[in-house]
């Protein structure tokens, strides 16, 4: 993975003054701040990068270390110790015919050996109070799951959080669990946990907000003469009376048989049923004869 260039992140040169860095940071922070870019994960990521770059470059001491050691600046002391040890070791090996000097590769190796190739937490601890970062999570649910209010236990950062999912949540909707995000810095408030719902529909019903839609096959004779028909709703079967001379594509509304309305306990949308008339196939000679007679009557 390529090392992060904090100067590039803030869009300033390596010789930029403290004032230039502050100015660049403020400008970018205003552009990418999560409060100004609701539900924009890309902006949130960018804002974290900008913050990290600013925390390092706005502190002269940290900036100096960063300029010298790059992304491993936080481990500069440990690096110096390891370097000394390696120098001593090489001096010993050099006596036995080895070569001296450090290449860039050696530099990386030292850090690699010490930290397994990864830099550990870059955040510097200043005196300012920072709100903890917001955590984003996606929760996949089945449409059937959100028909009724239910509780779920989520594990966020090894901590179990029990949440209540209200009936009728929408696909793509986000709920905020306050204070369950990252820990605040220097006494700042904790961030929030933002849960976005991804709702999969494996039923034969289509959902639009709190209304449901479905298509039901209707045989020719019931369509023409009327009759009773059992149809599926989301919660079970109901008997429908079909009017005589029902046309193909006729829609009927079953009031209150739709999806629960979000945060409106006991209120439901409607179920819309579209009749799809199926005409008989493989007619017998007798049937053909009777249909021809009917045709003549019309």
């Amino acid at each position, binding site marked *: 993975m390529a090392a992060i260039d904090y100067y590039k992140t803030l869009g300033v040169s390596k010789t930029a003054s403290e004032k230039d860095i502050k100015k660049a940071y403020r400008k970018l922070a*205003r552009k990418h701040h999560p*409060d100004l870019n*609701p539900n924009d994960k890309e902006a949130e990521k960018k804002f974290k990068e900008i913050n990290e770059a600013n925390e390092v470059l706005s502190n002269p001491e940290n900036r100096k270390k960063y300029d010298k050691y790059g992304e491993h600046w936080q481990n500069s002391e440990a690096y110096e110790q390891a370097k000394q040890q390696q120098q001593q070791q090489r001096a010993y090996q050099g006596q036995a015919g080895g070569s001296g000097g450090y290449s860039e590769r050696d530099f990386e190796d030292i850090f690699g050996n010490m930290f397994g190739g990864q830099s550990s937490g870059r955040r510097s601890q200043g005196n300012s109070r920072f*709100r903890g970062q917001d955590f984003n999570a996606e929760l996949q649910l089945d449409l059937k799951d959100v028909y009724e209010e239910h509780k779920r236990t989520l594990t966020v950062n090894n901590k179990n959080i029990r949440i209540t999912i209200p009936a009728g949540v929408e*696909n793509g909707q986000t709920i905020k669990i*306050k204070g369950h995000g990252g820990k605040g810095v220097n006494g700042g408030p904790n961030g929030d946990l933002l849960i976005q719902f991804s709702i999969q529909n494996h039923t034969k019903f*289509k959902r*639009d*907000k709190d209304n449901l*839609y479905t298509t039901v096959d209707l045989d020719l004779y019931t369509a023409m003469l009327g009759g009773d028909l059992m149809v599926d709703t989301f919660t079970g079967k109901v008997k429908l009376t079909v009017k005589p001379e029902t046309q193909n594509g006729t829609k009927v509304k079953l009031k209150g048989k739709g999806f629960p309305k979000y945060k409106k306990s006991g209120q439901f949308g409607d179920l819309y049923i579209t009749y799809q008339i199926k005409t008989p196939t493989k007619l017998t000679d007798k049937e053909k004869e009777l249909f021809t007679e009917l045709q003549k009557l019309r």
Partner: protein
Amino acid sequence: MEVTDLISITTFCTHYNVPVTFINDLQDYELIEIVVSDDDNYIKTTQLNELEKLMRLHFDLHINLEGLDAVYNLLERVENLQSEVISLQNTLRLYEDL
């Protein structure tokens, strides 16, 4: 309204280390609502999220009160539009699946 739904402005300002004048200014711009009860001033706890957001925008991003007023209204519109987009996408999916 129950007492538990309100938080004293003095308590809030002490906890967050912000001047009381900031809260009063926000009220002048009608960005928050102050409740006067028992001779003390309170804010509704339901406003805390929004208030924290306004504080971050003001103190972290140095957006002045006029800016906050403009940004706040625009954000409200963005959030409404985002909800509308999600709703439209869900409706569109209904017809795409047909």
